[in-house]
């Protein structure tokens, strides 16, 4: 890593670790928790997007995790870790079953089918109120551990999981596995003919991503102490997509930037809910129309603008060298 990046990483680490002590405001601690949890959801969705599929039902898997965990804890009287595992496992299981079927669909059909599936899950939650509490949801969900009562304590708890979740995503993306994912996205045929078992990879990514979503669902439910169907609607799934789009769909950092942006902006525009939504809509439109690479591409373009001349010269030189000596030395 370059020096600049190292400094940035250290600063980020300090801010992340010290956040609850940089301010006494409980509400800001709450925002910190939200950012930690939402970042896991956005980054896990990012994995799916990196294989070339945009899922509009990611929050449905959070719902599986949330409801699974809550029901196991409250109805079966199990301790929270069991609930967490149950919720995560449920989300993973559903993903493993439907993944091989829906991941064969291309771009627009995948978006449509996930959109519809998300709706079906939401309707199913509402219809089965004997289990899920229907539209009213389930109240008084207990926290994971009795000592996790303050926002500050929960922040470190959530941060730990966020480091795990986001770290897992980063690990996958920077490995040969990640390279194969990008190859699948950019040239599925080419990748397959280089030996990448495309469907198997897509399903593996999908299951891991949905398991992480399930995990996040459980963490979130036991934090807000409530589960209800509205938190897992297509609209909320869209928000996760927006975070990825704004940040830039081909970079994990983009997903993190998008998360911070989308979680904090509503707080800056408190009380103007409609304006927020209009603004998100406008950003979504503008990004897709003019800057599909998102904030990360914006950063790249700015860097090019400021330091571009050096990079351009190097590229031109390499191209010129390619033009001479057309044939290799065949012995």
């Amino acid at each position, binding site marked *: 890593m370059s020096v600049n990046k190292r400094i940035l990483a250290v600063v980020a680490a300090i801010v992340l670790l010290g956040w609850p002590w940089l301010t006494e405001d409980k509400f800001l601690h709450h925002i910190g928790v939200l950012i930690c949890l939402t970042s896991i959801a956005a980054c896990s969705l990012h994995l799916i997007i990196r294989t070339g599929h945009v899922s509009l039902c990611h929050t449905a898997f959070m719902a599986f995790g949330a409801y699974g965990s809550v029901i196991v804890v409250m109805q079966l009287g199990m301790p929270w870790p069991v609930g967490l595992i149950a919720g995560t496992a449920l989300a993973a299981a559903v993903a493993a079953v439907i993944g091989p079927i829906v991941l064969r669909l291309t771009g627009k059909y995948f978006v449509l089918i996930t959109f519809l599936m998300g*709706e079906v899950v939401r309707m199913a939650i509402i219809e089965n109120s004997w289990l899920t509490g229907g539209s009213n949801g389930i109240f008084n969900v207990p926290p994971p551990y009795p000592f996790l009562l303050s926002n500050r304590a929960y922040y470190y708890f959530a941060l730990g999981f966020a480091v795990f979740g986001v770290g897992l995503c980063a690990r996958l993306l920077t490995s040969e596995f990640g390279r194969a994912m990008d190859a699948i996205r950019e040239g599925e045929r080419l990748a397959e003919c280089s030996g990448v078992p495309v469907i198997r990879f897509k399903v593996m990514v999908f299951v891991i991503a949905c398991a992480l979503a399930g995990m996040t669902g459980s963490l979130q439910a036991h934090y807000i102490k409530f589960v209800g169907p509205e938190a897992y609607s297509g609209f909320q799934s*869209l928000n996760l997509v927006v975070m990825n789009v704004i940040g830039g769909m081909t970079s994990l950092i983009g997903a993190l930037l998008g998360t911070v942006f989308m979680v904090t902006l509503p707080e800056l525009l408190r009380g103007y809910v409609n304006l927020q*939504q209009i603004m998100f*809509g406008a950003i979504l439109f*503008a990004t*897709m129309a003019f800057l599909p690479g998102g904030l990360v591409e914006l950063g790249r373009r700015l860097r090019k603008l400021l330091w571009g001349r050096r990079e351009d010269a190097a590229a031109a030189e390499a191209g010129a060298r390619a033009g001479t000596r057309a044939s290799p030395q065949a012995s």
Partner: protein
Amino acid sequence: MFNATILGQVFVNGVSLSAIYILVALGFTLLFGIMRVVNFAHGEFAMLGAFALFHLIKDYHWPWLIALPVGVVGVALASLVLEWLVFRWFYQRMFESMIGLLGLNMMIMFGAVLLWDVHERNIPSVSSEVLMLGDIIVPVDRLIVVIIALAALAGFYLFIRYTRAGLAMRAAAQDLEIAETQGVNTRRTYKVAFFVAILLAALAGALWGQIYAVSPFLGERPLLMAFVVVILGGMGSIPGAALGGVLLGFTESFVGTFYGAAASAFLSFGVVILLLVVRPWGILGTPET
């Protein structure tokens, strides 16, 4: 349970639902077939059509038969601004259109909330009379809705079949490059197609608002229905939209009456999901190579 009267009622409901669904789906499928755009904001234009009708009647006291065409055409004309500002960046860019127009959806929906607040409003009935066909009750204003919808569909059919603009649109939908070399003006064709699509959506919305109620969230259901219809019939296929609309309208009427709204929704969605898996190009669509 299954006696003639109720079945007759189901049939009448089915006709009115089908007609409106076809109207919404047609515009949606036009935009896809010609400009390769997935208009996630389609429902919002329906909502605007409903609000236009409502305001012209409630605030300007225009008679229904004048308010309807004026309001609907007005929405379509005004939307040409959006065509220039928003839509044209997404032509032939399907993926970007999906997400970008979702953004437009949010902008229009919450803009409407700001302008008009969230309360539901009702459009006064055209007529409170009722027609009796045997034992079947047919409210006159529902009948008028059906007649207008069917007239619009007929008009659309004639337009697409027998006018030069309609021919240009069909050519562009088939193969854009070839159409251009044959002299079709792409930009103008797009604008005409957009106008017609929004006109149909606004009309569908106005009729929907007449039957149900008007609110900024009116557009959600029509959008969902447009998806279902278009996936059933085949994206980009006009006969497909008609077929899909009829299937959905009658299924919803039948299943909804006997088994409840939730069952109807699950069935529709379930079938469409299944279709997407085994035959994503719909009943009348063609698979893309």
